[in-house]
């Protein structure tokens, strides 16, 4: 649309209204984020007195200092990085293993395996049977419980398969087969090197899912030393709410601690979201592609 420079009067009106609409969306999405960012760098008292809007008041980093001094937050971070790292490796490996055969026209039982994946979209055993399974496998309260039950996302298998179908020409396979190249080697030395974008997309999808995962940990973990960051966040950000609102303390040091605890929440929101928010602009062009592949029916 950028090529058109001649606007009619009506179009000029349209442009003004349209820019206003976009700006409204922009403001509504941005405002809460800017507020939190501003509050996280402000003085605790200024935040509590409601003097902070979109710019830090009495700039300081006490909130961040408190976050990084909080042992449980740090242990949550370490655990989350572990679950994200190991979990994503397992996810991506299994997804590629499943997607490649499904992308092959000459895979005889392709439709059967495909149906197995698609059916999991429509129906699942439910929370209780899955919980009982994890329990009977002895995985309750283990790190494995956060990695294996969700080892493959059917949707990611389907977009990966579609990518393989679209980008690996069948002539390449035929030529390789002529030279005696078997499927394992073809996957490893031809398909994978050509699949950078899709690997980036599903890695991002899985990594975000692991980082933000909270339900699995909530139902499977008891031992607090294994808690991922999200469970710790829940304790601090969500559960503390009621207690903080209901108890009225007027001892001065208690008050100060109370204030710092409020400030810590803002800094914590920023710190906990930072890894994902920093990661995504780099992969943005890939995931737009990933969504488009996913939208094609295969």
């Amino acid at each position, binding site marked *: 649309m950028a090529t058109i420079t001649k606007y009619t009067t009506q179009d000029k009106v349209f442009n003004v209204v349209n820019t206003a609409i976009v700006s409204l969306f922009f403001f509504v999405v941005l405002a809460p984020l800017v507020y939190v960012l501003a509050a996280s760098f402000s003085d605790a008292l200024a935040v509590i007195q409601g003097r902070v809007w979109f710019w830090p008041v009495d700039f300081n980093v006490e909130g961040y200092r408190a976050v990084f001094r909080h042992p449980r937050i740090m242990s949550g971070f370490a655990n989350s990085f572990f679950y994200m790292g190991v979990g994503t490796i397992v996810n991506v490996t299994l997804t590629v*293993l499943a997607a490649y055969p499904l992308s092959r026209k000459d895979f005889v039982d392709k439709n059967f395996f495909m149906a197995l994946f698609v059916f999991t979209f429509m129906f*699942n055993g439910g929370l209780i049977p899955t919980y009982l399974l994890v329990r009977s496998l002895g995985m309750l309260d283990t790190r494995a419980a956060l990695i294996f039950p969700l080892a493959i996302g059917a949707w990611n298998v389907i977009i990966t398969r579609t990518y393989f179908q679209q980008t690996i020409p069948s002539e390449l396979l035929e030529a390789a087969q002529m030279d005696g190249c078997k499927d394992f080697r073809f996957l490893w030395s031809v398909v994978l090197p050509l699949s950078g974008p899709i690997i980036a997309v599903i890695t991002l999808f899985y990594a975000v899912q692991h980082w933000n995962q909270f339900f699995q940990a909530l139902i499977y973990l008891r031992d607090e030393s294994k808690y991922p960051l999200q469970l710790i966040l829940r304790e601090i950000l969500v559960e503390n709410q009621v207690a903080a609102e209901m108890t009225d303390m007027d001892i001065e040091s208690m008050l100060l601690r109370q204030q710092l605890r409020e400030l810590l929440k803002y800094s914590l929101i920023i710190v906990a979201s930072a890894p994902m928010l920093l990661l995504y602009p780099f992969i943005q062009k890939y995931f737009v592609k990933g969504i488009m592949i996913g939208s094609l029916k295969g």
Partner: protein
Amino acid sequence: MAEQLQLETTLAKSAAASTFRDRAAERWRGRKKGWQLYVLMILPFAYLMIFRYYPMLGAQIAFRDFNVVGGIWGSPWAGFKHFTRFVNSYMFGRVMSNTLILSFYQLVASFPLPILLALSLNYLPSRRYRKTVQMVTYAPHFISLVVLVGLMIQLLAMRNGPVNNLIELLGGQRQNFLGNPDAFRHLYVWSTVWQTLGYSSIIYIATLTAIAPELHEAAIVDGATIMQRIRHIDIPGILPTAVILLILSTGRVLEIGFEKAYLLQNPLNLRTSEIIQTFVYKQGLLAPIPQFSYAAAIGLFRAVIGLALLLTVNAISRRVSESSLW
């Protein structure tokens, strides 16, 4: 005429030749030749069987009285006892209507706005502004639900949240949004819209860019305004995508997220915030004496309704618009 007859006989012959047995033999040859593909499939297949399909068999626990000794396969049968208990319980009406209202409210609220955003962005004169808006509106998608709810709690806090500060500044009364059962649904739905708006618009933006530029060029030559081009070119262009997405979300409407409802729940707003999923969790895993069978029955009840809904919506859409999921 003669030629056609000949063609038909040839076709019939070749059809007869590839009998069932021949085809079966061919399939076996194909399997042998592609054995390595099956090896690749072993782990994913094992995963599907253990973690996806075995729990489906495990759902039979809904028809049994679970006890620790018998487990899933050995506990005594109970028929539809748990289902009737749920349907007759005083919670049934409340939990069902909460789930349905919340689901459909969210469906309706989150469908049109991404389309509007995509159309608006598409005609934004400044390219740089467009990129910035896209970047910022996608970002909330990457925030976790725990952080989102934490953010809402901070923003809406009664005593010192900025929203209430603003209300007071404008001369209003401070509101306890989070503890108000009448506010729960709006908070739930509009926070979802806030979080998913930008990300959901990606697909529409991509569809809009895929529309043939000749259509727009021709329209401009004919003196069409931007509004006219939106109405006659862009909207018809994205309609199929919109229909597919609408079917998809209608079919999955009952899969509304457990996590956010659970996180936003507090004793004060339970009247509207208790949905099937949170109820299952509480009955099954949180209760001092877990009622596995009862909770599994409620979960299965929802899953079956959800499946029926998906199949119905898909069938209707196939008949009406020729767009369907499969």
